[in-house]
């Protein structure tokens, strides 16, 4: 019978290496998916996966059983992804913009609003490309809040806790992200072949 995360964590805390292996193997794919959606970069995502499990191991004593282990793990991964993106921005690399939400030069506004009627495959590629561009144009806070809500199914309360925000601020980050996505994607999805 498969043991729960809580049991595995308890064994890992007691020094059982095999228990930590179980946790790593159980969550590595989902941490990778989260990291990729946060960073949009494969190599960075691998980096996030490794660092997340190393940090989690060192901080296992801080985990409290009343919260889900995976939520706690995602929080570490999301924070590290943000660190990574911040670092990329400091070095002038392409990535999420710091204040895209408030910027007058919001990239999303600059996106073309109409598309010709391509075939479905090409259309799908364009949608994916537009989604990626729009996510890249979100602010860090908007992107993290949106990814945690949309892809990870976390509640607004959990997102607020993960990002150190009020519930209202977390909610509005999601609203702004959805608004930008809608503005960028609506012209596309409304002409869906």
């Amino acid at each position, binding site marked *: 019978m498969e043991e729960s995360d809580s049991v595995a964590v308890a064994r890992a805390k007691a020094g059982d290496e095999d228990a930590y292996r179980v946790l790593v*193997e159980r969550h590595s794919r989902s941490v990778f998916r989260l990291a990729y959606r946060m960073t949009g970069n494969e190599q960075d995502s691998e980096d996030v996966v490794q660092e997340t499990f190393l940090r989690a191991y060192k901080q296992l004593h801080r985990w409290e059983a009343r919260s889900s282990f995976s939520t706690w793990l995602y929080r570490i991964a999301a924070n590290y992804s943000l660190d990574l993106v911040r670092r990329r921005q400091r070095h002038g690399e392409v990535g999420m913009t710091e204040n895209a939400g408030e910027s007058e030069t919001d990239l999303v506004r600059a996106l073309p609003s109409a598309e010709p009627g391509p075939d479905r495959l090409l259309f799908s590629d364009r949608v994916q490309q537009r989604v990626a561009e729009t996510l890249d144009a979100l602010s860090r806070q908007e992107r993290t809040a949106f990814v945690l809500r949309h892809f990870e199914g976390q509640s607004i309360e959990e997102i607020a806790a993960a990002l150190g925000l009020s519930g209202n601020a977390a909610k509005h980050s999601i609203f702004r992200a*959805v608004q930008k996505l*809608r503005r960028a994607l609506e012209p596309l999805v409304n002409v869906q072949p």
Partner: protein
Amino acid sequence: MNHLNEEQLVLYYYGEPAGDVEEHLAACEACRGAYHTLQRVLNSVDSLPVPERGADYEAQVWSTVERRLAPRRTFSLFSWKPMLAAAAMAAVVIAAFFVGRNGSPFQQKKPAAVATDSQVRERILMVAVGDHLERSQMVLAELANSRDPKHGSLDISYEQRAARDLVESNRLYRQTASNAGDEATANLLDELERVLLDIAHSPAEVSGDQLKDLRKEIEGRGILFKVKVFGSEVQHNESAPGAPSL
């Protein structure tokens, strides 16, 4: 009838409390249309591909994580229990040292027997100090060999906790060595104590620059080298044929 706003539709889409949205949607075609558009937009976000990982991805991740955890696990020997044991041992050794050294002045001893007791006491102290130096060396080596944090900061809370515990026993050994007139040992322990205090007072997570400062402190004093040399001498003396048995 007031129409639903976008925020209510978003909350409803994600299953968050949003009021009587469902009833309204059943009755209002305009809002139903707006909601279907929102659904199409958000569903299209799911089309964003995530690169596939190989079948053995989990094993690969574990293999890398395990390799990087290896020194950390060795280091976990520095958990508070062994450290408390070390401090307790230090206290016992020191108590034994002083009881032996300052035993009743009225007690009559043969000169040869006094010399033997003194050698045994010194050896007890050296064995304990040797063990203490070995533990300290591991903390210093761990920090000196840490890779610069690639992004953000490095968690050194293990090292910090270990250093805090080592400071306590270091202080006892240093005082004992000083009282015994062993200036070389006392000086080394004095230098070691300063470095251990710096580590103990560092933040639990250090930036690349803070890590560099710590390394500079360790390297600048040459403390790691001195500790290694001293530890080797202790070991050598301990295994020497003439060493008194305990």
